[in-house]
């Protein structure tokens, strides 16, 4: 069953995506499949193993199933400090 989610992009992933965020309707079985889908559409380029994923402001497992209204962010390696 397809759900509507918001995806936001940061740092070099935003540069690659060319957008800050997007609303997508997805039938992806999990967040890993969702990343593959968006990578295919936008050419994000990062191997998923180098990223983490966040749902609604908390780190999440790639096996999590997207739910309607989720705010999803693919997190490239951080460089604060």
């Amino acid at each position, binding site marked *: 069953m397809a759900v509507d989610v918001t995806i*936001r992009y*940061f*740092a*070099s992933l935003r*540069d*690659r995506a060319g957008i800050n965020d997007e609303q997508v309707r997805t039938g992806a079985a999990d967040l890993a499949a969702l990343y593959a889908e968006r990578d295919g559409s936008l*050419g994000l*380029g*990062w191997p998923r193993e*180098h990223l983490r994923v*966040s749902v*609604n*402001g*908390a*780190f999440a497992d790639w096996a999590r199933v997207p739910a309607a209204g989720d*705010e999803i*962010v693919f*997190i*490239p*390696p*951080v*460089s*604060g*400090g």
Partner: protein
Amino acid sequence: MSVAMAIKPSLDAGPGRRLPAGSGFALSEVVIDPAALRAAMADPCAGAFITFEGWVRNHHDGRAVAGLRYESYAALANNEGTAILAEAMARFDLLAVHCVHRVGELAVGELAVWVGVSACHRDGAFDACRFVIDEVKARVPVWKYEHYVEGDGGWLHPGPGQGCCAPALPKPG
């Protein structure tokens, strides 16, 4: 931008993890004032006070740096930052622990991140301060874009296990 809500400190570290007064994690869009942060942690019970400050350096990996920009995903940054401070309070014998991370454009020499730890005694306070900055660097979603003196720039995305920084992937042609 993602930092609109960033300067509100996030004091609730989740169920059962409220931080003591004087403790908290915040992102700041404006210059960090270490004297004000220090004064806020004054405590007649405290015998030791340790700070870590990260300053913007004029060089990195052999390149001259003109300045940098920090970007953050504020919702996750506040949650992770607050969780780190709650972990530090649980692991070490502290009175308070506070951390502020800048976002936006920073010049060389500017204060990028400030960590302050107060405790009765210094034992553990050094380890706690180190723990916080190490965890912030590893877990808090803040990204650095370096402006080089030569005019170009780039995002820093350190590889796993790297102490330093890997270049961003090349743009697909």
